[in-house]
């Protein structure tokens, strides 16, 4: 059972030591990683996913439950406690969607009898996040960018169903992000979001701030921000509904626009 993940700091792009203290992510925590483009956010979650042992360019080390993770976690996908949703918006394999999911389910879940059920659940999950539903006979390479991200999120939540989920900029996916958050957070896990989104950032226990390839600071969400979070959520919902109207090809009405104010 994974109870915590610890990041032991390494160095930034200049090779200087980054943040001095180790950072602990506890079960149930939501963490955001923020910072400008190119500041090393993706690199940090890759380090976590690789269970980096000081041999990646950053020199960071990752502990699980305060100990070195067993090699099995890295070499045997059925034991890997981490699901990573990368920034990729394309698949390269031309397998049909159901075949790909079938194979992935076989890798991640040892017991075979529930596989077809899992695949259906994954597709249903993904289709709640996309506009146009995913056709299971279509090839992975034919999916749109948004469908690809939606399927990756669904795959991580349903098929991997790991105690740790890392998400790289879900807000850029063109999917129903709020719905994704809602569905994902039904289970207790460690969530790490790479994000630029105030709503996700304020929902976090703390945010890790990246600069020049290194961890520069850790900010705990304070009272002011927590009190503010509710209003940010409302504002975001209003903007979300406007986005939906535009997406559907409809006109914005005075009624809808009044919500903004």
């Amino acid at each position, binding site marked *: 059972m994974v109870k915590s993940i610890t990041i032991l700091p390494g160095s930034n792009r200049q090779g200087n030591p980054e943040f001095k203290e180790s950072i602990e992510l506890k079960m149930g925590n939501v963490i955001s990683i923020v910072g400008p483009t190119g500041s090393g956010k993706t690199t940090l979650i*890759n380090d976590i*996913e*690789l269970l*980096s042992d000081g*041999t*990646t*360019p950053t020199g960071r080390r990752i502990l699980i439950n305060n100990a070195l993770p067993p090699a099995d976690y890295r*070499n045997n*996908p059925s034991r890997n406690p981490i*699901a*990573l*949703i*990368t920034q*990729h918006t394309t*698949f*390269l*394999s*031309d*397998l049909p969607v159901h075949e*790909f999911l079938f*194979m*992935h389910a*076989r*890798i*991640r879940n040892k017991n075979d009898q529930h596989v077809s059920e899992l695949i259906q659940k994954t597709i249903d999950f993904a289709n709640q996040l996309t506009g146009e539903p995913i056709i299971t006979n279509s090839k992975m390479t034919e999916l749109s960018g948004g469908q690809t991200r939606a399927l*990756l999120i669904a*795959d*991580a939540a349903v*098929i*991997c169903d790991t105690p740790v989920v890392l998400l790289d900029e879900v807000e850029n996916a063109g999917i129903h992000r709020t719905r994704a958050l809602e569905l994902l957070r039904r289970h207790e896990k460690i969530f790490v979001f790479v994000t630029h989104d105030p709503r996700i950032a304020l929902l976090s226990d703390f945010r890790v701030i990246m600069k020049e390839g290194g961890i520069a600071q850790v900010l705990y969400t304070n009272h002011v921000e927590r009190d503010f979070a509710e209003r940010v959520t409302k504002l975001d919902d209003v903007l979300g509904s406007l986005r939906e109207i535009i997406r559907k090809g409809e006109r914005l009405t005075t009624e809808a626009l009044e919500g903004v104010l």
Partner: protein
Amino acid sequence: MKLCICAGPATTGKTSVLRHVIKKLITMNLKSAYLKIDVQYAEEDELLASEFGIPTRKIYSGELCPDHCNVVVLGETLEWAQSVSSDILLVETAGLCLRCSPYVDGGMGIIVLEATSGINLPLKVGPMLSLADTAVITKIDRVSQAEREVFRMRIQDVAPSVRIREVNALHGIGIDPLVEQITQMGDIHENMLLRGNPPVGTCTICVGKKEIGWKQHFGIVRKLHGEVFYQGE
């Protein structure tokens, strides 16, 4: 001295992997020598020699299948590597024929495959994969975690006994366990043999007979429908 033969389709990252291997070996005070076998063009020998100051060579296989060429020249290459007092000879070959494999018993065989290649590639590379000790999957940074895992399983299904290492050969991530495996293997010995069974027969096409149709050829041939059979004396 140890021998490590590294094969794989074009541009999968063989040189990138070996660069990081060499870099790591240097930090361990181990001397490597490098041979590249390619059909008609290669520049790795010059690049690696200037980057690391190690002894390197290249051979153009020309008409020969690079894997066959490797077998023929390996004896002398081992002598050369020993004469420049190397600890490890690294051979990079662009195995193209896909029917034979370049590995020898007494040396380590590595196939380099890229995670970005089609999901069916592991099914197509034959003995180059199944006779390897280790399959290195490169370019893991270019695909999603799910795709990486499915690719890994494809290899495992085809070659269950081959050890798999996933690496990012641009940044050298995942290279250390591979280097550890290389340094822990046994030394080369006399009379080393090619691993596995080479493809059957001596082919008249390979020796330059161009006529179309099985009636024109000797050795192991086949008709469109039916089994292979032997024709000749």
